[in-house]
């Protein structure tokens, strides 16, 4: 009985020591103050926008071009405000976004299929590895003559180029992720009995997620650019789109309308980029990759 108590207290002592060490070693996280953090990110943006608007206004005031060729910010933003009330404008945004999303999704399918095959099969990698990287450097506009020849002035021509623009980045992101799965984790996985399918499911795919996400982000940027080029070149009757609006604004020499549309295109690009950034941040925080030095 006495011996048992002795063992018990010895055990308790070890427990207390371990708990003490753990408490000392574990990092104390600083609580983030959300409004302050938000404000800290928002005010530099406002500053940047104000500077851009000021430069824009200054260029207009310098009268390098007449007002009807290069409208000032007040006119352009006024035009933008007016257009927010037009059905045609929303129709154009909807068409463009539908094309962007469907093209991007198709590019993901193609990119993942190609990336998976190339990262898995040695021969394919030798054959296509550098070709995929080469495709990334190909300006998407260079594909359009061929696309129009193959598909005519149709939406398929646009989709074709959007997919060709985005898929190589997505495939490359996946391939890089698979290649750079940390060897120590591969060894741990092997010891844990992960093989073939379970190896991919439990180790290689999750490990390649950050790189895959980076590939998606870059792929989106390429898709968006290709789409705008396509919409300016391939104009389909009775289907207003943002690119088409740019085209007609130029034809009608409507500078305010042209600049207003450009602002919308820029804003959509920024919003999507912020979404990807948020996803990337969330991932980094979960994985503990967000610890900065200093």
């Amino acid at each position, binding site marked *: 009985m006495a011996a048992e108590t002795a063992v018990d207290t010895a055990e308790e002592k070890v427990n207390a*020591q371990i708990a003490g060490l753990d408490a000392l070693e574990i*990092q104390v996280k600083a609580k983030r103050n959300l409004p302050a953090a938000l404000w800290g990110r928002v005010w530099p943006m406002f500053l940047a926008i104000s500077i851009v608007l000021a430069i824009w206004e200054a260029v207009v005031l310098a009268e390098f071009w007449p007002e009807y060729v290069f409208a000032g910010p007040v006119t352009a933003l006024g035009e933008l405000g007016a257009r927010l009330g037009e059905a045609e404008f929303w129709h154009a945004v909807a068409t463009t976004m539908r094309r962007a999303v469907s093209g991007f999704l198709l590019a993901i399918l193609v990119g993942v299929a190609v990336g998976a095959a190339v990262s898995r099969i040695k021969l394919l990698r030798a054959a296509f590895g550098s070709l995929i990287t080469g495709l990334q450097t190909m300006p998407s506009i260079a594909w359009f003559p061929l696309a129009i020849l193959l598909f005519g002035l149709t939406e398929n021509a646009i989709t074709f180029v959007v997919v060709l623009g985005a898929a190589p980045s997505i495939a490359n992101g996946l391939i890089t992720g698979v290649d750079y799965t940390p060897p*120590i984790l591969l060894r*741990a996985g092997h*010891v*844990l009995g992960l093989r073939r399918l379970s190896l991919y499911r439990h180790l290689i795919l999750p490990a390649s997620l950050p790189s895959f996400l980076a590939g998606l982000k870059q792929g989106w940027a390429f898709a968006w650019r290709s789409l705008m080029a396509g919409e300016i070149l391939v104009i389909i009757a009775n289907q207003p789109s943002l690119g088409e609006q740019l085209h007609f604004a130029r034809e009608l020499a409507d500078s305010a309308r042209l600049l207003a549309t450009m602002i919308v295109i820029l804003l959509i690009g920024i919003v999507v980029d912020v979404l990807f950034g948020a996803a990337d941040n969330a991932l980094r925080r979960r994985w*503990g990759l967000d610890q900065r030095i200093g």
Partner: protein
Amino acid sequence: MTAPTQELGHGRTEGPAPAVRLDAVSKVYGRGATSLLALDQVSLNAAQGEFVCLLGASGCGKSTMLNLVAGLDRPTAGTIETGGKQIAMMFQEPALFPWLTVTGNIELALRKLDRKKRKERAAELLDVVHLGGFAKKRPHELSGGMRQRVALARALAQEADILLMDEPFGALDAMTRDLLHDELERIWRERNLTILFVTHNVREAVRLGDRVVLLSSRPGTVIEDYTVDLERPRRTESPEVAKLAGEITVRLKEEVSRHGR
């Protein structure tokens, strides 16, 4: 340990059947002029339930040896027998999966159980390594010592008969390491594990091992096999441990200085 049971058929070994048996194992890295003989005809047995420490200067092929036993690499010559026993391994780094929580990491080793059993078992194992309160944390939120304990729990989850440990506590401070030695010794006893424990810390080897096997460098071979006849539990700072550690250190220094000439 229990009384040695007489072995039939094997003329070379006495006592119980070895759980791990290396027979003239060699390992060459690379080919041609740049090839490196990492292990040269190493023969070594570890009995069931034995705690064997492998000791040697760095670069002498300790990790190579464990990798071969774990099946992470193939020997160039010789044979390794583990009798189809389940093998678990701990590395110098915790090697936890950063996208999984602490429990998630352990449950990965329990894939074969159903969901409910898996959860229960993972919780039990976390208690064994005194991390019951940290189940939902992610590896990066823990300290080095805690991560290494999660790695230990994950290795234990495999229900292995043989546990390979490659300098598992090398990066930890002395106090944490002492506590983990106590924990490891307790777990080893309770589960009758066979442990191959690699270290370059002589006192750690004497503190833990039934045997301390000394390896030479370039190429790695077994040069000495000490049996540690000290009462358990031992203390790293006890005079008996220090005395044997001193002897082994002298031998190790001889071996290392051989390379300077």
